[in-house]
């Protein structure tokens, strides 16, 4: 190797090829472009968050997961969709190994919907396909997500937090129906003496 002729392509060019002021000007321009892009992205996020009321679900509410099935908001007879006096809907669900209870809920379209979930056992995940609804369900806490659906149809609701050997079978559905059809779907109330 030592007797090979030197490769002219490896010749080291002398420094200072690009004028110093040109280097500084180029870096300043690039910095301005980057800051401009960051400003646009931040402005888009802030403005749309304010106009669309977007923010991460951050409800912090404790609940006793030991007595969940015995009394309170999450007893079996109180699960599912309930219409509130203000016209909105509240959906109460329990995520447990390895199912959501109830397995399918109806909600009206174009209506504010509030999902309230909790878990009696381990951490589960709550996500609705084709929407931005996404939160974790942690035992001992009540997770709350507010949204509204504009498109009627069926939305899949898989658990997306590994919760055990049956995790892959933990699916449920949310069926969004036109607002005027929703009252017709209201089930006949069950009688129950479980304290709520």
């Amino acid at each position, binding site marked *: 190797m030592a007797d090979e002729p030197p490769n*002219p392509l490896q010749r080291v060019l002398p420094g200072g090829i690009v004028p110093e002021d*040109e*280097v500084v000007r180029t870096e300043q321009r690039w910095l301005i472009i980057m800051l401009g892009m960051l400003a646009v992205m931040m402005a888009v996020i802030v403005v*749309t968050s304010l106009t669309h009321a*977007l923010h991460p679900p951050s409800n912090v509410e404790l609940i006793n997961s030991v007595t969940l099935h015995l009394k309170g908001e999450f007893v079996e007879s109180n699960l599912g969709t309930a219409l509130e006096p203000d016209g909105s809907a509240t959906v109460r669900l329990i995520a447990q190994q390895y199912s959501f209870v109830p397995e399918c809920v109806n909600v009206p379209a174009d209506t504010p919907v509030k999902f309230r979930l909790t878990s009696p056992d381990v951490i589960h995940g709550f996500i609705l396909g084709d*929407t*931005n609804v996404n939160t974790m369900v942690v035992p001992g806490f009540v997770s709350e997500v507010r949204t509204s659906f*504009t498109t009627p149809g069926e939305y899949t609701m898989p658990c997306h937090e590994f919760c055990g050997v049956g995790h892959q079978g933990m699916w449920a559905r949310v069926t969004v129906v036109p607002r005027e059809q929703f009252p017709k779907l209201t089930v006949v109330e069950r009688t129950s003496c479980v304290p709520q």
Partner: protein
Amino acid sequence: MPAPVEEPISAHIEGPHRSAAHLPEHVAAPIGAATAAEALKDGPRGALLIAAMAVGLLFIGWLAFYFLLFLPRGSVG
């Protein structure tokens, strides 16, 4: 009749591997410092163009995801 035994590829290689750029006649002629200075007197515009295209595509992609995918999926809170 036994099957012919193919010679391994390594049997045809003489000396260490060299890329096509090893031979000066296969690549562009090297430029001198004066030519390089002339080409770069206004800054590395070619590199800037490529960088701007890459970052611009990334920015357009971010905006497209945000406005065409994220926002239509509805608000949450």
